């Protein structure tokens, strides 16, 4: 597993420099609503997982990987783990950027990073949906799906949240759900979100393994 993850890092070493730049820009640009860190952590897997997949497809490296004594399920698992690895690397780069900015006492306000359970939930749902499609059709064919999902998420979620805030009270189906969450402590809600995220991710992994096992090269 380690060497599979390593290949995805090594093929795009230079990209981590752009990552630092990205973290700095996000931190500065979203300092007013403190969203820079969350965005960096979300955008990192989008860039790095997809770049790794694109190099794999360009080189047709799956011909080699599948010919090695490796179970296909391990190759699938590596992709699922790499999402959170790159999210973690995003967090680290972000902390470094903000840390350095604080250290040199830049007269600019940066947003700080808070890892919200909803971020983990978002990553699990996003890649839980995308990765089975990727394993079925490959990177090139699913590029646009991913693009639409990504921007749909950024414009769709705020609209959805606004809509729920505005009309949620009138939807009978949503009412019990809202009451359910409102009556619980933050920690309970967080654990529930993480548990659901984990379930979705595992289910998605199982689907991807089934798809990838029957794929031909």
């Amino acid at each position, binding site marked *: 597993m380690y060497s599979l993850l390593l290949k995805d890092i090594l093929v795009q070493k230079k990209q981590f420099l752009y990552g630092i730049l990205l973290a700095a820009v996000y931190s500065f640009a979203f300092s007013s609503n403190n969203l820079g860190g969350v965005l960096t952590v979300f955008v990192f897997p989008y860039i790095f997982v997809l770049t790794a997949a694109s190099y794999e497809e360009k*080189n047709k490296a799956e011909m080699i990987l599948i010919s090695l004594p490796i179970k296909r399920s391990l190759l699938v698992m590596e992709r699922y783990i790499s999402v959170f690895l790159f999210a973690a690397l995003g967090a680290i780069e972000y902390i470094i950027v903000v840390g350095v900015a604080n250290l040199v006492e830049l007269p600019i306000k940066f947003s700080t990073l808070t890892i919200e359970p909803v971020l983990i939930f978002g990553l699990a749902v996003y890649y839980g949906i995308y990765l089975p499609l990727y394993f079925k059709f490959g990177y090139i064919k699913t590029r646009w799906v991913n693009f639409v999902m990504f921007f749909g998420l950024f414009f769709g979620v705020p609209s959805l949240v606004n809509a729920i805030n505005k009309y949620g009270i009138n939807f009978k189906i949503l009412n019990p759900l809202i009451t359910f969450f409102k009556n619980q402590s933050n920690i309970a809600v967080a654990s529930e979100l993480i548990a659901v995220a984990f379930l979705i991710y595992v289910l998605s992994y199982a689907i991807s393994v089934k798809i990838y096992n029957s794929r031909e090269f």
Partner: protein
Amino acid sequence: MEPILEVKNLRKNYKDFSLKDVSFKLDRGYIMGFIGQNGAGKSTTIKLIMNLLKRDGGEIKIFGKDNIKHEIEVKNKIGFVYDECYFYEELTVLEMKEIIAPFYKEWDDDLFNKYIKEFDIPPKKKIKDLSKGMKMKFSLAIALSHNADLLIMDEPTSGLDPVVRSEILDILSDTIQDENKSVFFSTHITSDLDKIADYIILIDNGEIVLSAAKDDILDNYGLVKGSKELIDSEIKKNFVGININKYGFEGLAYNKNKVKRIFGEKVVIEKPTLEDIMLYHTRRDFNV
């Protein structure tokens, strides 16, 4: 001892092409050449052996074990070289090796370093900056560095210059000095096999049309040249294929001794090359 590779009634169906009941076996200590035109089914067969494609029927046994049920175990003892470089071109030779090595139980770093040195491969160079010959030698170094008993090669020499091709063939001959190891080698450059192969199988349009020891093939078949008046429908039955033009005929006979008895001194009989064998078996316009 069981064959190192045994393929029985292997089938794979596509819309416009089928592999039809392909069967052959390879014993330990031999090099088997797998020849045929482009598109005849060589790569499909190799991909089925490596489980890159899913078979529609038949059996593949490697070291006596099913290639899918015991996939990890058998792949640990297989070295593979493909027709193109499928490594990550952005990585260096050493980085790529570091990624591949941990998956093999018997990876031998000293052996790998020895090959890299012997093949003059610069370890810190990116794979994209290596020449085609170097890339192929790097593939071969990887394939030879984990104590594999079976080398599977899909057109490894295509597109290489004669010097590199000859070097690669020498390396393969050396490998076979160990009587436990075997090589399964697909190519359409039949002259490579004239030098090193022990057995030849010829595939045409998804079917095995010839499978025999190379020396038996070259000793028994005869390339016959003579006047076209000598050819009639009964005589044609002795030939795999005949090419008739206004000057006479040239044909590949199944049994050169029989043809010698029929024609006596009226024809010239030469020893065919593997290329002749392949051409006469596969060219539809030569069919009798």
